[in-house]
């Protein structure tokens, strides 16, 4: 894990790219020289970027650029081979997903992972942090269980509000497995937002979602940003990225190729070449 030669020159050059630091003075998320190797394949090769608090940052790149692996490394699903991840000023590299989620860094999955044999309402009620009834003794013992039920009523109310917000309240008592693809995406959003997060990593939240629903989801994201949430978005729909993200990070072959606002990215020739398959 910590072989002497993990600190390769790669990460040094990556941090030298000056584009981000002036854009983000006190980043909420700071990824520095992130590396992930699977056997002989290097999926992420020294990626470095920063995400400003309250922003909607887009992470784009052609297939195989390492976006999802980067997500997995940030959120603790994979342990990075090298590099650091800092969240809210603290080093969180390699922490378990539940530790990160408790600190306010959560994610959705590229392919919606609903808990299919639980109802939609149960899916959402699972998420709120610090539920007293998650202790087995409190759940069982007379006297303590009444307190659990007290707290549980608030969780139910909040869950219904969340379902209303995402307009899937009519499906509350359905098993999540019977939802359509788009509804599952909404459920994932609803669930992840019920964890009371500071920052949400969205992995292709719009794939398979119809245009009406897409607009709705993006409206929700804007609404939540006004409440102070930060989003990092992986998306293939360039139109959405260019219209909604104030900061865009382009990855290619496991590295950050370019960063900037929509116009900067659109005029960057390296980005065009990466997408069209030319050599950089």
């Amino acid at each position, binding site marked *: 894990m910590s072989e002497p030669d993990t600190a390769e020159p790669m990460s040094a050059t990556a941090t030298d790219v000056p584009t981000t630091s002036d854009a983000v003075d006190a980043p909420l998320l700071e990824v520095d020289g992130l590396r992930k190797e699977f056997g002989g394949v290097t999926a992420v090769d020294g990626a470095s970027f920063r995400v400003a608090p309250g922003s909607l940052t887009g992470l784009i790149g052609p297939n195989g650029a390492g976006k999802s692996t980067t997500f997995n490394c940030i*959120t*603790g*699903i994979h342990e990075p081979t090298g590099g650091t991840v800092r969240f809210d000023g603290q080093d969180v590299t390699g922490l*378990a*997903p*539940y530790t990160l*989620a*408790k600190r306010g860094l*959560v*994610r959705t*999955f590229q392919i919606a*992972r609903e*808990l*299919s*044999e*639980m*109802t939609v*309402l*149960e*899916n959402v*009620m*699972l*998420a709120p*942090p610090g*539920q*007293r*009834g*998650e*202790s*087995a003794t409190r*759940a*069982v013992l007379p006297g303590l*269980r009444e307190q*659990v*039920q007290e707290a*549980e*009523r608030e*969780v*139910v*109310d909040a869950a*219904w*509000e969340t379902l209303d917000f995402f307009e899937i*309240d009519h499906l*509350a*008592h359905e098993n999540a497995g019977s939802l359509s693809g788009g509804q599952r995406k909404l459920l994932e959003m609803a*669930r*992840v937002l019920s*964890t009371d997060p500071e920052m949400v990593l969205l992995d292709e939240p719009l794939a398979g979602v119809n245009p009406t629903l897409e607009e709705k989801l993006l409206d929700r994201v804007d609404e939540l940003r006004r409440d102070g949430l930060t989003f990092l978005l992986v998306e293939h729909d360039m139109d959405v990225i260019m219209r909604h993200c104030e900061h865009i990070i382009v990855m290619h072959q496991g590295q950050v190729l370019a960063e900037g606002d929509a116009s900067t990215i659109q005029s960057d020739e390296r980005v065009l070449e990466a997408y069209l398959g030319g050599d950089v």
Partner: protein
Amino acid sequence: MSALDDAWARAERLPDAVLVAGYIVALWLVLAVVAAAVGGQQATNLAAGFVGSVTLLIGAYALLTLALNLQWGYTGLFNIGIAGFMAVGAYTTAILTAPVNPSTAGGVPGFGLPLWVGLPGGMVAAAVVGAVAALPALRLRADYLAIVTVALSEIIRLFVNWRGAAEVTYFGQTFGTGGATGIGFKSPRRVVADLVTGVGQPVVSAAQSVGVSAPNVVNIAYGLGLLVLVAASFWLLNRLVESPFGRVLKSIREDETVTQSLGKDTRLFKIKAFMIGCALMGLAGALFRGNAGYISPAQFRPTVTFYIFAALIIGGSGSNTGSILGAATFTALLFYLPARLGENLPTFGASSPGNIIDAVGPLGALNPGPLVAYVAGNVSTLRFVLIGVVLIYIVQHRPQGLLGYRNEPAASVDLSRPRADDGGETDE
């Protein structure tokens, strides 16, 4: 078929306790009818014997199935070492309660403690062994837990069978497992028998006046005692899973990565669920296998593990009510009843042929006697064919089991939408 479905749909809407109690009483009645048909003069006593035996089986299997349902049905922990955890519970109880100076020659001495210490002791030991088994497997995928548990259960059985563990002396105290000959200890049934012949004497007298023997009264009382334990476990487990705790268990079964991504430290939940289930298996091991105050390694072969899985699959994995129904169906209808029917099949004077060919051959001459006699003579083996057929039917036509997938949300309160005047809409 649809009439049956309708009836079942109506039954499913009954309160769970009524459904379970009604089902068990119905099974008793079936057995009583069988006893009446074959018992002649002794019908009442025979019926009491049937009911006593089957109630013990239902109670013991229900405890085990409930325990497995918590582990596998709720949390997705694939424990195929049930027999091992039963053995740990039974042997710990036995060693703690075996008399310090055994009266029989060759008996193994123990600590001579009372059962109310020995049984909880067995539960704690089973839970601790469960934790030890689960710890290394928790970081791995589910299949590894299965391998670890099945291996452990065999290791436990071989260990208690081992001559070296039969009788040891540490710190001036001699104790042991008794090796292959087994170990005698304070009989839980004895406790019930003393109660019955003591305060229950009027009941015994009344029973004897209708022809039921005193041992059969004790049998029934012991079975009912187990059913009380089942009811208590049912109540406790329902409270446990109808809560945020149960919600996390279910979500671990569905997708552990997602559960972790939502901020739940799944390791703690898995280990708790596993330990609680193992404790219950340990208790059932002591009260079921050790009901007469004697256990031996042969009683803890892995077959019982698969019976419990069959019972849970039939009843409906993920439902506590279904677990009890499955245990009752499996033990009474698939295990006990065929054996009693087989013993009493009219064989038209034919004796059981030595092989299936001699049994089927005479059918050509329209003589069913040998076949019937063959079935009757081999019913304890042939019922596994019945169990197999039922399992295949259930898996194909009702994979959720009798009561699986029923709407049993894991929450401690009513989940219907709060009314608008409750302030549900006024937030923000």
